């Protein structure tokens, strides 16, 4: 479960070592944009050591390496892969070929390290117009791909438009990515909301992303983590309704009925599927139905 994913700059020890105390389901150790070219070596070693020595149980580690058009990405993987990150976030993924190139090198390292195939997942970061248009091909380019991730800052620069709080400029990219990811059977995560001090804005933005079908949302500030977790968690009303749906289905089966209504609405397969997803997530969060 990755409701929230918090970016942490890869060369900042103070933030890295506290990353597992900030409430997010996952942290993204950033070796790319948050690190200047002169400090790439230092960040790579610092992130490697943080993963090697610090306990991040309960918080998945994702590492954003440098893009495959830089001289850094293979050295990033050489240092990071032995520490078994949950996912590698691959920036500026534009084509299926980009994924396959990264996948081939990760496969080579996994074999050297004696890891089972696809131990480390890949999450292409879609942040160019080319990437958006190739989203389904990217999501299906390798078995290692577990999710797509939308990066709106670079995307809007590529689109030559302004990034706004309302996000109309990324509407197409958001819906396109959700559709491509779901068609490919992988997860999909939304871009960070960048105004750290706008509490109402982050709530609206996260709620909208959830409504579109995103699985979770990234953040650049610990301050946004709580709101994102709340938005992407099932509400008590949703949980209770889901249990009612499953009870109704069980009753219909016991009575030999093919269909049943609940609160005046027919219960069909998509409703059951949604109820199962909600209950699975609630159980993962330690939540249950209300006291009767």
């Amino acid at each position, binding site marked *: 479960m990755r409701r929230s994913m918090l970016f942490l700059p890869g060369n900042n*020890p103070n933030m890295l*070592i506290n990353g597992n105390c900030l409430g997010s389901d996952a942290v993204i150790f950033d070796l790319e944009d948050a690190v200047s070219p002169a400090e790439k070596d230092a960040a790579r070693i610092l992130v490697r050591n*943080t993963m090697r020595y610090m306990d991040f149980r309960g918080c998945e580690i994702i590492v954003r390496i440098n893009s495959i058009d830089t001289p850094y990405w293979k050295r990033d993987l050489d240092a990071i892969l032995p520490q078994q990150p949950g996912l590698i976030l691959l920036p500026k993924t534009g084509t299926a070929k980009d994924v396959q190139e990264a996948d081939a090198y990760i496969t080579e390292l996994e074999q050297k390290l004696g890891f089972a195939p696809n131990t480390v997942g890949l999450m292409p970061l879609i942040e160019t117009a080319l990437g958006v248009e190739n989203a389904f091909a990217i999501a299906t380019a390798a078995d290692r791909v577990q999710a797509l991730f939308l990066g709106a800052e670079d995307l809007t620069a590529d689109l030559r438009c302004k990034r706004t709080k309302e996000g109309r400029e990324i509407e197409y990219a958001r819906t396109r990515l959700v559709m491509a990811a779901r068609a490919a059977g992988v997860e999909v995560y939304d871009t960070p909301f960048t105004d750290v001090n706008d509490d109402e804005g982050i709530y609206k933005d996260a709620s909208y992303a959830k409504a579109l079908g995103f699985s979770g949302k990234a953040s650049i500030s610990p301050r946004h983590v709580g709101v994102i977790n709340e938005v992407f968690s099932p509400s008590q009303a949703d949980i209770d309704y889901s249990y009612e749906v499953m009870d109704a289905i069980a009753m219909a089966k016991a009575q030999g009925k093919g269909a049943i209504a609940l609160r005046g609405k027919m219960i069909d397969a998509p409703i059951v599927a949604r109820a199962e997803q909600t209950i699975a997530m609630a159980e993962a969060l330690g939540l249950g139905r209300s006291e009767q």
Partner: protein
Amino acid sequence: MEITKCAAAGTMESSDVYVEIEPRETGLEVELQSVVQAQFGQAIEETVRQVLKDCGVENAKVRVVDRGALECVIRARVETAAMRGKGEA
């Protein structure tokens, strides 16, 4: 391979450590300043020496200014300084 040039790594920020390294003819010389010198000075110096040994550095002068860094951070910054001093970064 030995240290061939002056190099540095890390910062003076809280939870970090600043490490400077320079060539030296014979042996290791470690100069340490730390906010936790009294309690952990010896342990920090041992860590610095161990990392340099692991990096194959036998001769160097090292200045370490610790701002309360954890051991994994100290290890990272010393390794980075050593790699830079050897021209391998």
